[in-house]
């Protein structure tokens, strides 16, 4: 009883905030008569969404397609390289410092270069998404594969387990609570990566739509695009979070 009351509040409060912001926004717009080109009001954005709903959905689909593919490719590659690092300390020593350094650099700056290399189509965007998704997953996976209780290794060795068994029954499941949070970070980065890559040269996708609308000063369309890609990004994030709660069921959540 008490719990349902609380969870109701947890939904009610943010929803209330959302509508208050919209109303204040609309009021400011009404009082100061801000031009639509500078800042469209919520009603104008809403109308824009209604008029161009299928266009927006189409562009969002393209961007999310690139982001999801980049995310999958980047994460799989990251996990494979993490496995390499676990079994070859030389390659880890040689490469891992660069991985950590690259994680902190704005890889997005490479987007125009990728357009030169891979052209105007989807591959450049998928590569961009994969690159930015790669590093957090690599760091998470390396941590997970190596963060093992020494006694657990002793246990497996005392049972004369093979390296393959140690990996499949100990290292891999042990790494999941580290990998899944890094995948959640990677979802956000992959969507940003795809959108930014579209800014630099594309004929489809939300990034293209936003840049193109800016040429025609269709600010409300730009906002509509931002809203669509934001919602899609959030849904992507929560999909992985949902998978996390199923896969890493033993981890205590607060």
């Amino acid at each position, binding site marked *: 009883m008490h719990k349902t009351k609380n969870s109701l509040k947890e939904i009610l409060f943010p929803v209330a905030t959302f509508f208050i912001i919209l109303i204040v926004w609309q009021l400011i717009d009404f009082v100061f008569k801000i031009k639509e080109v500078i800042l469209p009001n919520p009603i104008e954005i809403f109308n824009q969404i209604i008029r161009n709903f299928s266009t927006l959905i189409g562009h969002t689909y393209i961007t999310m397609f690139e982001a999801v593919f980049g995310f999958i490719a980047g994460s799989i590659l990251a996990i494979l390289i993490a496995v390499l690092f676990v079994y070859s300390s030389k390659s880890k020593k040689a490469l891992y410092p660069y991985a950590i350094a690259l994680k902190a650099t704005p890889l997005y700056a490479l987007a125009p270069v990728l357009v030169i290399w891979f052209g105007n189509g989807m591959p450049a965007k998928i590569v961009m998404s994969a690159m930015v998704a790669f590093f957090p997953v690599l760091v998470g996976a390396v941590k997970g594969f190596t963060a093992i209780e020494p*006694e*657990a290794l*002793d*246990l497996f060795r*005392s*049972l*004369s387990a093979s390296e393959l068994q140690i990996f499949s*029954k100990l290292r891999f499941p042990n790494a*999941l609570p580290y990998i899944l949070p890094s995948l959640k970070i990677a979802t956000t980065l992959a969507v940003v990566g795809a959108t930014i890559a579209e800014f630099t040269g594309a004929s489809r996708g939300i990034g293209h739509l936003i840049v193109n609308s800016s040429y025609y000063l269709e600010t409300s369309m730009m906002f509509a695009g931002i809203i669509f890609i934001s919602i899609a990004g959030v849904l992507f994030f929560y999909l992985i979070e949902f998978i996390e709660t199923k896969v890493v069921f*033993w981890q205590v959540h607060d």
Partner: protein
Amino acid sequence: MIQIKNLTKDWKTKGKNLTAIDNIDLSVSKGEFVSIIGPSGCGKTTLLRLIAGLIKPTSGEVIVNEELSKRNSIKKLSVVFQNPVLLPWRNVIENVKLPLELDNNLKSSVKDKIRLVGLSSFKHYYPKELSGGMQQRVSLARALVLNPELLLMDEPFGALDELNRNKLNLELLKIHRRLNPTIVFVTHSISEAIFLSDKVVILSNGPAKVKDIVEIQLPRKRTIELKETKKFQDYVKCIRQKIV
């Protein structure tokens, strides 16, 4: 069962040699319950890891069941660690089953072993749903699932409160009577060592040497009341004096 001859283990730290185990000789016969006792950090765990074959001696040898060189003898040995080391993604049954999964040739009844440690009604629970004492019971069941001839225990009940420790001591004795494995039990509790063992090996502070071996001549079937008897107290006094 176990023959330890001139066993020495050095650790190399920062270019220096640190002797952890210094020329230990010890023999344990089949079915015997032997406790190893000594001050913290004296090398008890190192000795146990050497017997388990988890680390290699610097010199000397450990012969288990006179066939150490044969790989299959290792299967007859189980270790119970200080921590329960349960896999959090596996429930009780799955945790106890682990040793059997690692070697498909082995067959044993998982449910019997879970019953033996009194966890039948918890067999679908996950480690985080169990108390510390229950987790250590699961760890014991997992060690027993191989029907080991030799059970190596490294302060398994050290993290438990007095009541749980006593309870598990009694159950360990029951298991020892029923399955009769050879047990080497590391502890720093004098009374636990006396209560459980046929023989208490006292190690000196690092490097570990065998300071003395005390035979415990108390009836094999033991109850908690035994701890209040004069004879038991005399053993405690005797060992305490030797340990310092």
